[in-house]
């Protein structure tokens, strides 16, 4: 189970969000939508401790910590239980596709190089890049890079994978292959929180869609309900705008 209780984040005098509560069951897939600048990325980054929350509790599986006063060990433990997929892929430029995937297994999990490579090749197989094991990120397309980014997150065997707009930096031609991979993970019931405006994907894959605005969770529910019958006026307005650009077929 993943739980955020009363999570608050400020940048100086600016409060991004206050007292956010959010709970996911294992195997649950939620998609977070909302206008830009609302705090979606910051929320994901707090769960991975890339940002330090100012208050609240974070619980991931059997690890539960006071988010503001987490110790170094707790932070590392939290990060091992969570994995992040970045909008701009953020692959290690000095490592091949295989080594990007194996890096965490070797350095963080302490696997031998041989074990890690064996698992790494399995993952490459699953993300459809078995032939690119020795390619550096600079020579991969955006879609391939993001698939490696997802592969790296898969290798972490995290309890939850956090996706921050994984397709929004991609040329349109590469979006589908990345979404297909994410659907594949969803079918395997990988717990995930996805910030994305791919409404079709949300419709097909999400167990729950969460609408955020101005640092608040305004409304949440199964995609069928939220998309067809939004309760809050802000949700209605946002959905009208997004669905106009990104219709569900």
């Amino acid at each position, binding site marked *: 189970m993943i739980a955020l209780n009363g999570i608050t984040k400020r940048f100086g005098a600016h409060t991004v969000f206050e007292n956010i509560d959010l709970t996911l069951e294992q195997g649950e897939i939620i998609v977070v939508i909302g206008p830009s600048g609302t705090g979606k990325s910051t929320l994901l980054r707090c769960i*991975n401790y*890339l940002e330090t929350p100012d208050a609240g509790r974070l619980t991931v599986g059997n690890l539960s910590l006071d988010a503001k006063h987490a110790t170094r060990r707790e932070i*590392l433990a939290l*990060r*091992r239980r*969570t*994995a*992040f997929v*970045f909008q*701009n892929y*953020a*692959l*290690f*430029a*000095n*490592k091949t596709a295989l080594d990007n995937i194996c*890096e*965490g297994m070797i*350095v*963080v999990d302490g696997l031998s190089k041989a074990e890690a490579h064996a698992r790494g090749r399995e993952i490459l197989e699953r993300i459809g890049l078995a032939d690119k094991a*020795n*390619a*550096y*990120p*600079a*020579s991969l397309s955006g879609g391939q890079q993001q698939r490696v*980014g997802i592969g*790296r*997150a898969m290798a*972490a065997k995290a309890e939850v994978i956090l996706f921050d707009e994984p397709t929004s930096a991609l040329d349109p031609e590469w979006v589908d292959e990345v979404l297909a991979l994410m659907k594949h993970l969803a079918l395997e019931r990988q717990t995930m929180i996805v910030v994305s405006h791919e409404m079709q994907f949300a419709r097909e894959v999400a167990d729950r869609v969460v609408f955020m605005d101005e640092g608040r969770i305004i409304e949440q529910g199964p995609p069928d309900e939220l998309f067809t019958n939004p309760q809050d006026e802000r949700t209605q307005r946002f959905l009208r705008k997004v669905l106009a650009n990104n219709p569900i077929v």
Partner: protein
Amino acid sequence: MLHATAETLLGRVLSGDPIMHVLDLDYMLGLLPILLGYLPLTLEMAGAGMVAALVLACLLAVVRVQRMPGLNALAMLFISFFRGTPLLVQLFLFYYGLPQILTFLVAINGITATILGLTLHFSAYMAESIRAAIVGVDRSQTEAALSIGMTQGQLMRRIVLPQATRVATPTLMNYFIDMIKATSLAFTLGVTELMGATQKEAAGSFLYFEAFLMVAVIYWVVVELLSWLQRRLEKRLNRAYQR
């Protein structure tokens, strides 16, 4: 004055006196092996200075990048001083000045003082290049490494430094080349290295032009060899991570 010179020149030309003596090539060739005998000392001073400067520069760069409280301000002061004053002044300060204050340094010899001066001076420049190279590594890679649970140390060793090294190497090679040339200042501290030896030879033969031309050629060739190496290295470094 100009008139007088012209007159003398004209007089000398008319009377068949040479206005320029021909280069004494035999003298230069004879000088070459003598001077080359001093090349190892020059290279040793530069080599020792380079190794020490690299270590110090890495420490300074890490202090600066991590903004270590207290140490950061000290590092900035150090860098500012050693970049802001001439190397010659620094060498005189260490060799002639410092022993008056720190009396145990009376025993410092010119070679040690030169290596010390080169180390401190060049580490200040190199620290800034290394810092820029570290900072230049895409911040999102740092976050990616942290996101999978790597520690700061692992992140530095495995992701940041390998990439920063690649970026900084050509610049650091340039500093090494500068350092080789800067060793010639050691002769002002009484060290008989390449430049000091040339000075002595020239004073004996009075063939100043030949002697200093010879030493210039030696420095030039050494630097060209290193530049060639640098270009090859750079080509290889640019190819890295591309396939």
